[in-house]
C-alpha cells in the first residue's frame, strides 16, 4: 500500500514511546477513541532514555518517513532522570540530523504524559500531515529497490 508517488503518499512514522507515559498516553487516546491517521506505529521502550539515536538513524536508513521519540515530561520520569538524558541526547541529535540534511519535520522528540491522550493524538496527527506534505524521505536511505525489484519481477 505504501506508495511513493507524492500525490497519494501515505507516510510511515515510527514512534518510540516510553512505557510509563507516552505508551499510556497512546493507550488513553485509544480508550478515549481519539481518532488519528493510521500512519504511525508505536514501538514500546521502558523509558525514552532507552532510545539510542542510532535506532533513529537506522529507521531513516531503512526508509521510514518520520520518527517521533516520546517520553514523560522532564521531572515525571518513572525512573526519575531518564528523560533528562533523552533531552540532552536528542537536543544534539535533532540538530545533527538537520545538519545531515534530514528535514526537521521528519524527526521530533516530544513529552507526552499518560494523561495526555489528546496530545498524543494531536502530535502524531500534525506530524503525519507535515510529513505527508514534504513527501517520502530519500535522505540517508539504504534501500534495495533494485535488488528487490529484480527478485519480484522474476516471480
Amino acid at each position, binding site marked *: 500500500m505504501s506508495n511513493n508517488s507524492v500525490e497519494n503518499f501515505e507516510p510511515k512514522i515510527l514512534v518510540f514511546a516510553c512505557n510509563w507515559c507516552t505508551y499510556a498516553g497512546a493507550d488513553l487516546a485509544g480508550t478515549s477513541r481519539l481518532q488519528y491517521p493510521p500512519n504511525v506505529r508505536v514501538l514500546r521502550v521502558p523509558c525514552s532514555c532507552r532510545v539510542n539515536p542510532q535506532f533513529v538513524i537506522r529507521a531513516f*536508513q531503512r526508509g521510514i518517513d518520520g520518527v517521533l521519540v516520546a517520553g514523560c515530561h522532564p521531572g515525571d520520569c518513572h525512573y526519575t532522570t531518564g528523560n533528562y538524558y533523552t*533531552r540532552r541526547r536528542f537536543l544534539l541529535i535533532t540538530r545533527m540530523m538537520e545538519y*545531515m540534511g534530514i528535514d526537521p519535520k521528519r524527526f521530533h522528540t516530544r513529552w507526552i504524559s499518560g494523561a495526555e491522550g489528546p496530545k498524543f493524538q494531536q502530535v502524531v496527527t500534525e506530524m503525519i500531515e507535515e510529513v505527508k506534505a514534504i513527501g517520502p524521505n530519500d*535522505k540517508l536511505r539504504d534501500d534495495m529497490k533494485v535488488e528487490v525489484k529484480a527478485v519480484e519481477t522474476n516471480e
Partner: protein
Amino acid sequence: MSDIQSEMRATAKQLLESGEATVVIGWEKGTMPYNSTPVMIRSAADVDKLIWDEYCQQNLSTYLIDFIYTEDKVAIFAKGCDTRAYNRLIQDKRISADKCIVIGVPCSGMKSAKAAAKLPEGAEVPMSKACKECRYPNPVVFDRKIGQDVTPWCTEKDFSDVEAIEAMDQDAKAAFWKEQYTKCIRCYACRNICPACNCTNCIFDQSASGWQSKDINASENQFYGVTRAFHVAGRCIECGQCEMVCPSDVPIMLMNKKFIKDIDTLFGAYEAGLETEGPVPLSHYEVSDPEEFM
C-alpha cells in the same frame, strides 16, 4: 626546533638509562620528508632516532593503551593535543597515570602532511587545519616539560566551517554529506587513531550485533560517520587526527565540531580533555537544560 630535539633525546636517554622509563615513545623520520612517525625506543642507544620537526603531528597518547598489560613504564612526548588525549584516556580509565611519564612539548602547530604530499618539493606547506584552530598548543598536563610555552594563536573555537554547512538548505546538506561519505572506504583509520574512540570492542567491530552491515554505501557510511561523531560527542579533544589520516579526505571534524558547537550553545562551553574528573556532557544533565520538546 633542533634545541627541543636534542633535549628530547637527552631526556629519553636519561629516562631509559636511569630506568625511570622502560619505553620512550616519540617521533622518528619516516619515508617522506613529510612523514614523521611514531617510534618506540627501548634502548638508550636508539635515542638518536628521535626527531622533532614540523610534521610530528601524530598523537602519541593512544599508544599508551598498548602498554596497560605490560610491565613497562612508558614515557611519551606530548604536545598540547596529546596531553588532552592523555586526559581523555585517563578519564575513560583506559590508562593509568602511574605507568606513564608525560613529557610535555609546547608546539607551534604542525604542517599538513597531506598538503605536502600534493605540493611540489620545496613549496611552502600550510599548517594543518586542526593546528590552525588549536587553542591548547601547550601541554595541559605533564610530568616534565621541554621547551618554552608558546602563545596560543587562537582563543576562540572557530565554527565558521560548521556554520557554512548549517547555512545550506536541506537538500544541499544531504547532497554534501552523501558525496563525502560515498568516498569513505570504512578502513576505520579515523576511529583507530582517535583518542576518544578507545573502546576495546567498538560496535563497528561487532557485526553479529546487527548495528551495521559490512555493505559499503553512502547510507551505511553515514551511519558510521554520525554514530562515531555521537560517540565522541563531548569527548572529542579536537586533535583532528581522524581527518588527517582519512585516505579519502572525508571532512570528519565537521561532524565532531557540530556536536562541540551545539554542546557549547545548549549546555554551556565545555572543553574535553582538560580535566580527568567531572561530568562529561552526555553522562550528565541539568534540570535547567533547554526545553524544546514540549
